[in-house]
């Protein structure tokens, strides 16, 4: 059945696209892991926070309005202006950088040279804090995010590919938002790879991940490196927040996209930027194809666990992930 085959292809293409969206979230994790060996649990919340800030700025929401109203009995909500998108994005980036500075100043600085699990824990504290802060600042209702990204099926592709199949086939469905996401992801991955592999800062970043103390001893300023990567991770989170927020509105659940990124991260390797994208693509295609072929027979909604099982299978053969740095085992 050629149609069946074409459907499978369609599912694959959409899997690839979904994978790109996962990878966007995974990328933020990778950056921070690479630079400090920190498994950043707060990455999802960071995306939420960035998206909330963006929408809040765009719509001219008064930050902490709820708190102010509760404390002073006032009734303020909006400034009454709306901000042009690009300006809002620029300001949000500014906020993310400030946040990175604060994170370094109040958390990381005090936790130099601690074991990974402790740093992981600190990011959990951060996640709680940011979640609360985001809510207090901007409120917990669903917000519509509109930065002018195209949405919906690309009719151009749909029309042109419809001829491939029979009557039951309507052409390939590809979401325009996904195409934008893929382009953005490609740019991000390439530039970040170049940055970390070939620049002096990139080298310093990998050095920090290996050994905090030694990095300090050769004069690398941990504080600077951390502010740098957390800023970049914040910006990546903003990108992820925009892409996901455009689909679902901005709300608490946005922070749960981190769960979609975990298997990607593990499959690709915690330390590899290209790994994040390749991992994303494999997971995206794998889970969608499985749901398409077998999942629907055994009751559906298999994607969540299948992503992990797939990652697990890969890890059994390569315990450091596809592109992760080999775990050095020596005595």
């Amino acid at each position, binding site marked *: 059945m050629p149609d069946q085959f074409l459907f499978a292809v369609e599912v694959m293409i959409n899997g690839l696209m979904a994978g790109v969206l996962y990878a966007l979230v995974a990328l933020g994790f990778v950056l921070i892991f690479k630079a400090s060996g920190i498994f950043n649990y707060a990455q999802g919340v960071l995306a939420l926070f960035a998206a909330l800030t963006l929408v809040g700025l765009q719509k001219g929401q008064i930050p902490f309005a709820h708190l102010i109203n509760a404390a002073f009995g006032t009734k303020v909500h909006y400034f009454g202006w709306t901000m042009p998108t690009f300006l809002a994005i620029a300001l949000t980036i500014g906020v993310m950088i400030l946040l990175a500075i604060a994170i370094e100043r109040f958390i990381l600085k005090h936790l*130099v*040279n601690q074991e990974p699990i402790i740093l992981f824990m600190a990011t959990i504290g951060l996640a709680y804090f940011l979640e609360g802060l985001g809510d207090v600042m901007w409120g917990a209702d669903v917000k519509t995010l509109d930065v002018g990204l195209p949405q919906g099926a690309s009719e151009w592709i749909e029309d042109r590919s419809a001829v491939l199949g029979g009557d039951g086939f309507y052409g390939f469905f590809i979401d325009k938002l996904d195409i934008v996401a893929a382009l953005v992801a490609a740019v991000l991955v390439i530039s970040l790879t170049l940055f970390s592999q070939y620049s*002096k800062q990139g*080298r*310093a970043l*990998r*050095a920090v*991940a*290996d*050994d*905090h*103390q*030694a*990095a*300090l*001893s*050769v*004069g*690398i*300023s*941990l*504080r*600077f490196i951390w502010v740098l990567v957390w800023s970049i991770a914040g910006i990546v989170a903003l990108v992820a927040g925009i892409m996901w927020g455009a689909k679902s509105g901005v709300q608490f659940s946005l922070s749960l996209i981190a769960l979609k990124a975990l298997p990607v991260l593990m499959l690709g390797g915690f*330390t590899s930027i290209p790994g994040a994208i390749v991992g994303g693509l494999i997971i995206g295609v794998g889970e969608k194809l499985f749901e398409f072929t077998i999942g629907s027979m055994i009751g559906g909604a298999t994607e969540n666990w299948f992503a992990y099982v797939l990652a697990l299978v890969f890890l059994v053969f390569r315990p450091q992930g596809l592109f992760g*740095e*080999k775990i*050095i085992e*020596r005595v």
Partner: protein
Amino acid sequence: MLDAGRTQETLLEVNNIEVIYNHVILVLKGVSLTVPKGGITALLGGNGAGKTTTLKAISNLLRSERGEVTKGTIHYRGERVQDLSPSDLVKKGVIQVMEGRHCFEHLTVEENLMTGAYTRTDGKAAIAADLEMVYTYFPRLKERRKSQAGYTSGGEQQMTAIGRALMSRPETVLLDEPSMGLAPQLVEQIFEIVKSVNENEGVTFLLAEQNTNVALRYAHYGYILESGRIVMDGPAADLRENPDVKEFYLGMSDTGRKSFRDVRSYRRRKRWLS
């Protein structure tokens, strides 16, 4: 005091410092020392005497180990440096080679060396030239430059760590146990390198060593540290002649070198302080 090694201005001055780890473990109980510019100063002492702690106090790496200097002062070129960050100190020209190598495992040997030049701003060419210099000092590293440092042998890692420090064009190097785990030939070689860097480039060294024998041969001045206190200091040549140092740090008896086989009919040393 004799003037060996003290002929020039004082570069580093540590004044009566006390160090506490984890808020409870008192390790240094008032250590003072001075390092003259252009000299090689050795810090000697047994295990756990506090050599590493002293060096880390100077380079400000203590904080990351939950240790702190609770008393006393540290001055570098007359300026108080206790509150600077380690990277500021590197910019001022003080770099530490840490005990136990601490190479960046996942970076190649060459990348490790390049991180040493992180704070430098004098251009790629100068850095490349220094890289060549390090390779001439340590030809073995050139052979292994593309290997991940995590997979190189202990000695190779030690060379990498020293080379990495030299890459920063330091004014003062704090060298912690450079000879540990190195083959005898290489120990000599490394000290020769220290000496020639010291003489040719005018780099000042403060080195903590267990290998008293070699250290005192190359150093100008020595301090002996025990249980967190300086118990003796003097020009290296004098220390080498001191009978106690001879017996307990150099392993010499009146009749030349003692055999390790004879240690069993053994007399416990006396401690200067404990």
